[in-house]
C-alpha cells in the first residue's frame, strides 16, 4: 500500500491525524479486535458444568480436525466457492463488458435493472425464491401443472446447494457487474482508438486492454466473493424449514457455529470454528491477492 505523501503533509508529521482516525479506530477496536482476541481466548478453554472453566490448550482445535461434521460443511462451501463464484463473476463481467461496449440498446435500463437485486435483503430474496421453488404455490409447481411435467424439486438434498447458489448469484451478479463497469469506465478512450488503429478487433481489445486494466477490480470482487461464500448463512438458515432433509444443522460452517452456540451452548468450540474459518479465509484471500498482483 502506497502511503507516500507530498512534502507539505510530511512536514506536519504529528498526532493531528488521530483527531480524524481516532473515533473509527476506537469502535473498530471494540467490534473487530476485541472479539478476535476474545475468541482466541475462548478457543483455548473449556467450560464444563462440573469443573468450570479450565485451560485446555489446543484440545478444541484437535477436536475440530477430527470433526467430520465440520469438514463436511467446509467441503460444501468449498464446492460452492469453486462453482458458484466463477459463474457469478463471469456473468457479471460479460454484462459489464456488454454495457461498456456502447453497442447495447437501452444500456441505462440494463445497468440499473440488473443491479436492483442487490438492494433486496438476503432474507427477502431467500423467502421469495423459497416460495418460487416451492411446489405449493411456487413457479416450479405452476410449471409442473401447466405443462404437465415434473421438474425435480429444487429443494431436494442433491439440488439444495445449487438452488442456494442461484439465489446468491441473483443477489450479487449486479453488484459485481457494477464494480467491473465502474472500473471499465475510467479506462481512457484514447487507448481504444490507438488499438483499433493498430487493427485490433473487439475481442483483442477486451483481452489486451480492458481485462488487464480492471485487474484490481477483478481481484477485489473475487476476494469479496470468497469471504461471502465462506460466510454462507442467511440463505440456508431461511430455507431450512422448507427443506429440513436437505439442509442439515451443519450445512455450512457458519450454520454449524451458530448451532453450537445457541442450541448447544458450546461457546468455546463455536469460537474455535469461527477462528479456523477466519484463518482459512484470510489465507485464501491473501493468496488470491498475491497472485492477482504478481501477474501485473
Amino acid at each position, binding site marked *: 500500500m502506497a502511503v507516500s505523501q507530498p512534502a507539505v503533509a510530511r512536514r506536519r508529521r504529528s498526532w493531528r491525524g488521530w483527531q480524524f482516525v481516532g473515533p473509527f479506530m476506537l469502535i473498530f477496536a471494540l467490534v473487530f479486535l476485541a472479539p478476535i482476541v476474545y475468541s482466541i481466548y475462548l478457543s483455548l478453554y473449556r467450560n464444563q458444568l462440573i469443573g468450570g472453566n479450565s485451560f485446555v490448550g489446543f484440545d478444541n482445535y484437535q477436536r475440530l480436525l477430527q470433526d467430520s461434521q465440520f469438514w463436511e460443511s467446509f467441503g460444501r462451501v468449498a464446492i460452492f466457492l469453486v462453482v458458484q463464484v466463477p459463474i457469478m463473476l463471469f456473468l457479471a463481467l460479460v454484462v459489464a463488458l*456488454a454495457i461498456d461496449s456502447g453497442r447495447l440498446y437501452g444500456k441505462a435500463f440494463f445497468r440499473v*435493472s440488473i443491479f*436492483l437485486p442487490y438492494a433486496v435483503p438476503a432474507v427477502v430474496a431467500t*423467502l421469495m425464491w423459497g416460495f*418460487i421453488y416451492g411446489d405449493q404455490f411456487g413457479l416450479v409447481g405452476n410449471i409442473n401443472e401447466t405443462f404437465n411435467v415434473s421438474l425435480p424439486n429444487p429443494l431436494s438434498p442433491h439440488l439444495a446447494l445449487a438452488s442456494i447458489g442461484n439465489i446468491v448469484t441473483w443477489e450479487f451478479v449486479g453488484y459485481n457487474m457494477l464494480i467491473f463497469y465502474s472500473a471499465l469506465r475510467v479506462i481512457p478512450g484514447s487507448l481504444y482508438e*490507438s488499438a483499433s*488503429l*493498430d487493427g485490433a478487433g473487439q475481442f483483442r481489445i477486451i483481452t489486451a486492454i480492458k481485462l488487464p486494466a480492471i485487474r484490481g477490480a477483478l481481484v477485489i470482487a473475487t476476494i469479496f466473493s470468497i469471504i461471502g461464500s465462506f460466510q454462507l448463512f442467511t440463505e440456508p438458515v431461511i430455507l431450512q424449514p422448507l427443506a429440513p432433509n436437505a439442509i442439515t444443522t451443519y450445512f455450512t460452517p457458519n450454520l454449524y457455529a451458530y448451532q453450537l452456540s445457541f442450541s448447544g451452548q458450546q461457546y468455546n468450540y463455536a*469460537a474455535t470454528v469461527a477462528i479456523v474459518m477466519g484463518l482459512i479465509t484470510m489465507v485464501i484471500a491473501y493468496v488470491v491477492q498475491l497472485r492477482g498482483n504478481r501477474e501485473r
Partner: protein
Amino acid sequence: MTTAVQTPAANKQLTVTQKARRKKRQGSVVLTVLTALMALYSLVPLAWLIFNSSKTQGDLFTSFGLWFSDGHFALWDNIRDTFTYNDGIFLRWFGNTLLYVVVGAGGATLLAALAGYGLAKFSFVGKRAVFAIVLGAVAVPGTALAVPTFLMFSKLGLTNTPWAVIIPSLISPFGLYLMWTFASQAIPDEMLEAARMDGAGEFRTFFRISVPLLAPGIVTVALFSIVATWNNYFLPLIMLKDPDWYPLTVGLNAWNAQSTTAGGEAVYNLVITGSLLTILPLLAAFLLLQRYWQSGLSAGSVKE
C-alpha cells in the same frame, strides 16, 4: 498497464475518421437480447413478488405465479393487514430498522469519512499500523466475529438492546477504503493549506471545505452502509430476543416461520406483502440517487 498499445506516428486524418466510426457504431441486437436475458433473470422474481402481493392467502395457492389472480385484487387489503397484524408490530419493526439505519449507517458514514480523510490528508504517528490492522481485519469474515461479539456484549449487558445492533454497524472497512481513495483525489492539498493560513481549525476546514468536495463519495458510502444495515440478518438474529426490537428482516422471517410451527397461523400473504414493503424504500433510494453513487464508485476505482 502491461499492454499499452503503441500509438503509431499519429496520422491525424485517420484518427478523425476513426472517431467518426466509433460514434456511428451500430447497436448490436444479439448483444442486447443476451443482456436482456440477464435483466429478465434479475426482474422476474421481483415481478413475482408484485403479482403475489395482490393475492389473498387462498388465491396464492390457486393462481398462476406470474400474473394477477382472477379473484379479488387484494393488494390494499394486504398492505392494511400487514400494518395492523399483531397490534401493528410490522410498523414497530419498520421503525426499528429506520433507527438502526439512521444511527448505524449514518454513524458508519461519518466515521468512514473522518477516518478516510485523516488517512488521505495527514501524516501521523502510527499511520502504517492503522493501514495494516484495518486491511488485515477486513479479511476476517464478519459473521465469524458475530458469536464472540455476542458473548462479549452479553457480558457488558448490551444484548437485547438496540446498541447491540447499532455499535457493530458503525464500522465499514469498505467505506473507509472508498473514502480514503476518494479523499486522496478530490481534495487538493493547496486548498487545505490556504484554509489553515486563514486560521481555520482542522474540523472547521473539514466540514466547510472538504465535505462538499467529498459529497459523491459520502453518498456512495452512505448508500452501501444503508443497504448493509437494512439487510442485516445474522447480527440482530443473535443479539435480540425481544420481538419489539426486531428489524424487518428478522420479523419477516419470524412470520414466515409461524406456518411451520405447531399452532402457528400461516400468513404467507403478509410475508409477501411485507417483503415488498421492505424493499421499496431501498429500491427508491438507489433509483433516485443513481447519479451520485455511480460517479462515487467510478472515482473509487481509479486507484485500484
